């Protein structure tokens, strides 16, 4: 059982964005930037992958940020400070490759993807890199983790689709502006919606900037057993849970990945509607 020590609601409107500070000493001690956990929000519930947004080995805590987009995340969001999450397993996946790059490291986070990119920015900075972060959201109220990213980076650039905060436009515009403006980029890391990752990788490709995309695919066990998370990278099938979650963004078949992510849309909708009306396991929380 994993106790929720703090709960913060970043976005109160639905679908809400919620952050938990969770007591998980063994996971916190082992966690490295880029890794994720599998969470079961309620006994009998789904196993859902969530990237770790922060960890504190001394305090024995990890931070998890999620948006209530489906029944399982809605269930998770109902838990309050002092309650427990029945199952959290990890840290899973390979850690981000951290080194001192020749040129700035650009961390690109889109929407809720800003949270999981936070430990990567932190680790890249600690390794002596000049870290520039580009944070994107549809509008100002959806911008999360800005203060923490300012601490974890040397420079932060902000874009919103509607121009309600920072520069109007997409993260790709800011990234292109940075490169064309003469900034030497040693490596880029991107986490966010698949379409945003796809186009971010397209920006860096002609410049041959090594770009790592952290993929969030459908998973069941998260430990290499089911293969549900598979993705084609450079023509080869890879498992996101054990070979990833980060891959060479220029080699990922994003279109196939997006099609695979849509596999359970009708079921997800059915479960969400039932949850909203208080049926299924939603009754138990």
């Amino acid at each position, binding site marked *: 059982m994993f106790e929720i020590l703090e709960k913060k609601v970043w976005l109160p409107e639905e679908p809400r964005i919620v952050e938990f500070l969770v007591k998980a000493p*063994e*996971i916190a001690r*082992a966690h490295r930037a880029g890794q994720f956990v599998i969470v*079961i929000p*309620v006994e*009998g*519930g*789904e*196993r859902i992958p969530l990237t770790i947004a922060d960890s504190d080995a001394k305090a024995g805590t990890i931070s998890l940020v999620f948006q209530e987009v489906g*029944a*399982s995340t809605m*269930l998770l969001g109902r838990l309050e400070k002092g309650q427990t999450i*029945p*199952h*959290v*397993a*990890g*840290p*899973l996946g*390979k850690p981000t490759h951290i080194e001192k790059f020749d040129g700035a490291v650009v961390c690109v986070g889109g929407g809720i993807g800003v949270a999981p990119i936070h430990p990567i920015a932190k680790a890249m900075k600690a390794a002596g890199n000049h870290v520039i972060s580009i944070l994107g959201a549809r509008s100002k109220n959806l911008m999360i983790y800005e203060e923490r990213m300012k601490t974890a980076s040397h420079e932060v650039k902000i874009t919103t689709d509607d121009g309600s905060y920072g520069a109007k436009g997409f993260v790709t515009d800011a990234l292109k502006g940075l490169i064309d403006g003469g900034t030497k980029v040693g490596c880029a890391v991107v986490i966010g919606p698949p379409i945003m990752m796809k186009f971010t990788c397209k920006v860096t490709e002609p410049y041959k900037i090594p770009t790592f995309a952290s993929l969030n695919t459908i998973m*069941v*066990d998260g*430990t*290499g*057993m*089911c*293969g*549900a998370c*598979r*993705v*084609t990278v450079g023509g080869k*099938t890879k*498992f996101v849970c*054990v070979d990833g979650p980060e891959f060479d963004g220029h080699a990922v078949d994003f279109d*196939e990945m997006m*099609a*695979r992510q*849509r*596999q*359970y849309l009708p*079921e*997800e909708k*059915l*479960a969400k509607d*039932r949850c909203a009306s208080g049926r*299924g*396991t939603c009754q138990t929380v």
Partner: protein
Amino acid sequence: MPEQNAKVRAKNFQQVTTGYTEEMAQLEAQRCLQCKKPTCTIGCPVSVPIPEFIKAITEKDYAKAVAAIKRTNLLPAVCGRVCPQEMQCESKCVVGKKNEPVAIGRLERFVADWEASQGAAPVPPTPKKTGKKVAVVGTGPGGLICAGYLIQKGHDVTMFEALHKAGGVLVYGIPEFRLPKAIVQREVDYLIKLGCQLKTDFVVGKTRTIGQLMDEDKFDAVYIGVGAGLPWFMDVPGENLNGVYSANEYLTRNNLMKAFEFPNADTPIKRHKNVAVVGGGNVAMDSVRTALRLGADNAYIVYRRGMEELPARKEEIEHAQHEGVQFKILTAPVKVIGNKDGWVEGLECVEMELGEPDASGRRRPIEKKGSNFVMKIDAVIPAIGTGANPLLAMTTPDMQFNKRGYIVTENPQTGRTTKKGVFAGGDIVTGAATVISAAGAGRQAGMAIDKYLSDGEWWDPNAPPPPAAVPAAK
């Protein structure tokens, strides 16, 4: 043995066979000749004293029968259901030379179920504590047997499980209709009653490494029984289309996550109408029969050799046939065909014929050129085997793995790896095999670990191999 009507059971997840009644068990047990040199016991990977437990049945002393089995096998309710007895104990039965062999597996199941019907299993007296700590990594059949053996020798045992439920393949792989999960839970509960600790949601290699378990957490010995769970795919075009599932994914969704109850369970599964399962082993049979139960109109086994060569248990093949599974034998998939939305709509196959026997002793399938045809299919489930998960190899640099990722051990009797104090057995050493062979390896390792904890002796993995035995002169 009585079983549910094939048409009825093909639509539910309840047990196919309902087990012997007491009268049936009595009649069957009396067929045993009580051989002085029991060849059946030799055929059993864990050496169950078979004549002894069958004699106890004839005396109606079922408690004595269970106790006899449990001396060497703590999982009789499981093994009585899923062991390939026809290839093991029953294949060696003397009665079987002229008639049907004694149904040892069914008798084993009968006494295990009798024990379950009596309420909680009696807990043997606690042995004297040795003060030694053993970590058992993986709670499949091998891990459970090993843990049970060691706790009874007085060692402290902690079992580590990556998933949220203990049981390994017994809970995620084998369907409810063949092995009810309540039975596995009962065995796990029994181990906990004996004093074993269980840590679920604990991924050894990630949450803690093997090295950390030994150096920091002070475990005196480690048993690795993590299985070989990484699914193999067919390496044909279209394999990542929507509607292609590894057998592990399909079975895990349904068994461990109870997706057949969706939306009352949270994990979904697709109820496809035309399903092709590629492969011919027990996992393939479990998958195809699950597809039927989820409402498939056509559920096919696509297998590149003939009916004779199917590696699955005969009983499972017959059950599948009775339930309506269609066998496309001498057929191999070459391509998965998708529609414009990325979903499977067909499976292109080629006909095969059998040539000369290959290294495995089975006749090698050869493609009939130009015999390609397309099956109308909306789901494809490769059940063609599994390999070693790389998690432990990536995080245990001071232990030797072979080229295919399996752990190198001294020999099957000891299970000693190249890292002192670490033992391994089951599929992670041999490659994918059966529940009972994993249980056998767990028992052997249990004995070896117990010995190591008393004498501390190890082997030198770098020593030159002993000279080959010289054939005796004629």
